């Protein structure tokens, strides 16, 4: 038989003005199992809490119902009081007779009757409550940062500076991401390399950061605070410890005609290469798909010239296992490829290029040393056309969203062009100018007013080549919807920002969700923008949606502070409101039929199937198992399970039914 105590609060007059509090207490005293039922002016005050504590001790209560305000207000208060009196806090419930009753009804019999119902149902629920213990999870204070663009760099430095260990994994041979390719950056026009390179170096030298470049995530297991990751460190074919980065191998390698990824195909690199001079680490890799030795079995020039004997043709991929407490995803974005613009002849006409290519051309360290030259013949373009929204905001191309960065970088490109080719003509075809940001609109106006960039409102339908000129057929919707034609020397497409290659696969490995365009999904678009659905995995930068550097950096710092907050405790305490799959004594082991329907329904991927073995190690059945580190207690699985093998602690079927039966 239960020993329940009921404490009815007047809340000054907030409750008692419309509810007969004494009457409620009296009614409750008659409920079987209630051994103590009182009313009092302020239950949450110190004397009120003492009343509860005393009653627990004196009457040996095994359940408490405080009928007062909303549990969102004072549940923690009363549960703490109970715990101090030695009662398991989860045996304390609140009946909400203020917000849901006294405040919303007139003084009447019906109001008091409702209060009685509300308290009574909680009494019945408490009878079924079980003591629960908050879950403690240990935390490994090492963060994994995936991706070494500006997002990853910022997050890694912030976490490392907070005194925690960071493992950074970058897919390409150097960190730096797209920012390292940029010439100058809006809205200040400061040199991208100049502000980025010091940060890259800091990452490499930071005592708390371990950097793995030319590496990828192989697999991930576990849950918040306790991830186990495996990293594949691809063979560089160079012993990083021995290599001094002298660069002799790269200059002597005879295989030189390989389009450089860093220069977006506008320059060449050798088979053994460092992507760009400021690369971190400044150690070369051998591109096995191009190296003559790997393709034909002879050459080995690099080995011969290397003064430190660092070349290792037989180096193999290495798998590194690390324990990780939190993960920051910062794998960035990409731009839409050539095959999507047949009407613009991109990929067919060499002088039709995309934005990143223009960045390389405009960059002082680029293939033309910053002089604006067209790729086909190296002449200076006299007329240049920029096409905004190339692929973006284009449902027919499958990209209905706005890429957000291109309006700004197009204005920047036009400006850079005009600064370098004073007599040149720059045209921008646009649909809308989206320049919402500090100093952004001013920046675009500067391009228009000071640099005389001609903005034309309309899209381009087609580009074709005629007598060495690119004929750009567009429309000017501000000039009475006219078709207009511009004979250009070069065309730059502000091609849509899209999710990075492999984003979908990576999301699946990490159990994070992604949107229809394969950008990673945040937990809440407004209030949890740097978290994912999977506890312990955070987002930074353009892997979540197209964004510029200022936004990327703020988000990266946000993600880093989430990680730091997580690492500020050595153990995580979690509410025990989680689902459990029943386990019963043999021969049944569990009523779970192993249908696995619950597995995909869980929004947090907290459910996996487990093999239950008997004493001889023989698998007797498959049953669902819930990972308490991942479960957030939504109860979806409970509702879904047809055999009711899962229950939700704190909101179990029994408890909810008991509540119902009291009504």
């Amino acid at each position, binding site marked *: 038989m239960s020993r329940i105590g009921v404490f009815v609060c007047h809340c000054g007059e907030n409750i008692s003005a419309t509810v007969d509090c004494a009457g409620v207490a009296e009614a409750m005293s008659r409920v079987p199992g209630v051994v103590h039922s009182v009313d009092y002016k302020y239950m949450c005050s110190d004397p009120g809490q003492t009343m509860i504590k005393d009653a627990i001790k004196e009457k040996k209560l095994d359940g408490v119902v405080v009928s007062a305000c909303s549990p969102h207000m004072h549940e923690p208060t009363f549960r703490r009081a109970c715990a101090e009196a030695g009662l398991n806090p989860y045996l304390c419930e609140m009946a909400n007779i203020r917000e849901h009753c006294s405040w919303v009804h007139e003084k009447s019999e019906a109001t008091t009757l409702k209060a009685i119902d509300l308290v009574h149902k909680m009494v019945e629920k408490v009878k079924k409550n079980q003591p629960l213990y908050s879950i403690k999870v240990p935390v490994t204070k090492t963060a994994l940062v995936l991706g070494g663009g500006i997002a990853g760099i910022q997050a890694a430095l912030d976490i490392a500076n907070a005194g925690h260990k960071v493992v950074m994994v970058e897919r390409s041979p150097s960190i730096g991401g797209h920012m390292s390719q940029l010439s100058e950056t809006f809205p200040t026009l400061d040199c991208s390399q100049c502000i980025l390179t010091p940060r890259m170096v800091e990452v490499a030298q930071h005592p708390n950061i371990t950097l793995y470049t030319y590496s990828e995530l192989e697999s991930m297991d576990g849950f918040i605070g306790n991830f186990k990751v495996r990293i594949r460190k691809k063979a560089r074919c160079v012993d990083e410890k021995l290599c001094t980065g002298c660069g002799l191998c790269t200059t002597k390698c005879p295989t030189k005609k390989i389009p450089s990824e860093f220069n977006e195909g506008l320059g060449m690199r050798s088979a053994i290469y460092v992507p760009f001079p400021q690369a971190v680490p400044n150690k070369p890799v051998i591109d096995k798909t191009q190296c003559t030795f790997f393709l034909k079995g002879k050459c080995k020039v690099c080995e011969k010239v290397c003064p430190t004997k660092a070349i290792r043709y037989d180096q193999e991929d290495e798998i590194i296992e690390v324990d990780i407490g939190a993960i920051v995803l910062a794998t960035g974005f990409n731009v839409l490829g050539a095959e999507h613009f*047949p*009407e613009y*002849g991109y990929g*067919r*006409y*060499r*002088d039709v290029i995309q934005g990143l290519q223009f960045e390389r051309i405009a960059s002082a360290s680029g293939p033309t040393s910053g002089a604006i030259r067209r790729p*086909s*013949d*190296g*002449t200076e373009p*006299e*007329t240049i056309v920029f096409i905004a929204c190339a692929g973006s905001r284009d449902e027919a191309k499958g990209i209905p969203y706005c890429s957000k960065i291109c309006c700004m970088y197009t204005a920047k490109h036009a400006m850079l062009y005009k600064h370098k080719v004073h*007599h040149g*003509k720059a*045209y921008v075809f646009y649909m809308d100018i989206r320049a919402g940001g500090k100093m952004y609109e001013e920046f675009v106006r500067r391009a228009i007013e000071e640099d005389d960039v*001609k903005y*034309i409102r309309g899209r381009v339908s087609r580009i*074709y*080549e*005629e*007598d*060495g*000129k690119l004929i750009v057929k567009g429309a000017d919707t501000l*000039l009475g919807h*006219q*078709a*207009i*034609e*511009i*004979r250009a*020397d070069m065309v730059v497409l502000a091609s849509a920002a899209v999710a990075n290659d492999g984003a979908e696969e990576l999301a699946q490995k990490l159990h994070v969700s992604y949107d229809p365009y394969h950008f990673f999904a945040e937990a809440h678009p407004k209030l949890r923008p740097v978290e994912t659905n999977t506890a312990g995995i955070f987002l930074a930068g353009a892997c979540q949606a197209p964004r510029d550097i200022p936004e990327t950096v703020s988000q990266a710092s946000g993600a880093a502070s989430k990680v730091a907050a997580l690492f500020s405790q050595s153990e995580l305490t979690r509410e025990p409101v989680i689902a459990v799959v029943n386990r019963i004594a043999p021969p049944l082991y569990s009523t779970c039929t192993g249908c696995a329907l619950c597995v995909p329904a869980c929004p947090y991927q907290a459910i996996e199937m487990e093999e239950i073995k008997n004493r001889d190690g023989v698998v007797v059945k498959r049953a669902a198992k819930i990972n308490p580190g991942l479960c957030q207690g939504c109860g979806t699985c409970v509702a879904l399970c047809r055999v009711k093998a899962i229950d939700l602690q704190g909101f179990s079927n029994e408890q909810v039914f008991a509540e119902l039966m009291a009504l």
Partner: protein
Amino acid sequence: MIKIAYYPGCSLLGTAREYDESLRAIVKKMGIELVDVPDWNCCGASSAHSLDHDLSVALPGRILMQAESLGLEDLVVPCAACYSRLMMARHELMEDAALKARVCEMTGMEFRGTVRPINIIEFLQKYSDTFTDKITAPFDKDVACYYGCLLVRPPKVTNFDRPEDPRSMDEIMSLLGSKPVEWDFKVECCGAAHSITRAGLVGKLSSKIIGNAVHRGAQAIIVACPLCHSNLDMRRNFINKAAGRKYDIPVLYITEAVGLAMGIGEKELGLHRHTVKVRYPEKVKVEAEPRPKAAAATKPTPAAQTEQTEEA
């Protein structure tokens, strides 16, 4: 013998007789029998859909239903315009049940959707092995393959090749030993719909097409549509007038090219019916990429550039 349903369409009995003749000549060699759709009618061309939507589905609908009686799946439609109308009608009949009911009522027939129109390129692609082994006189010319608008558009309906830069005709021509040139007007409209009403306009549009083909060094333009042919060939005087120069590049149906490669006689293929004599101009040396010299030479002065934003 392979049997395929055949819808010639009105032009192939009149202005495009040589298209019909050359097709019949090559299939004979290919070992394919064309079975005419019984008692076929006109597809309604551009006029039916201009004035009466239901009619524009019912007329081609009747053709499809007549063809269904043959029990064959593929229906080869050499005229690109007819092909477009038949595809459009089929698309709408499949998607719109109410329209289908109306059309069945109008025609007094039942539409089952068992017949699939294919255009001449699809046909030649599908049966390419029945002619590649019979090539005796490779058509070793530089050719500009002109697809026109109706084979590839609207892409959702025709679902054929790449809408902006199709390749399939180029591939067939390569099989015949030709060298297809890269050019810019493969799918530009020649203005066929206004061939009779606005011949001047047609001249203007078509002259751009011919001009680009010649400029890119083509010795012949290959077409797969009677309307394209009549515009580029029969209306050459309008084109020359619009261009202010005389173009003598011949325009051949792809079936004629296939026939010539298989060694069929010019007469049998109907080449004598062309307005522009089928004689191939000398090869002109052209670079595919923009020429540096040309670019430098035509470099306009800054003053001249202010004129560049032409208002149409």
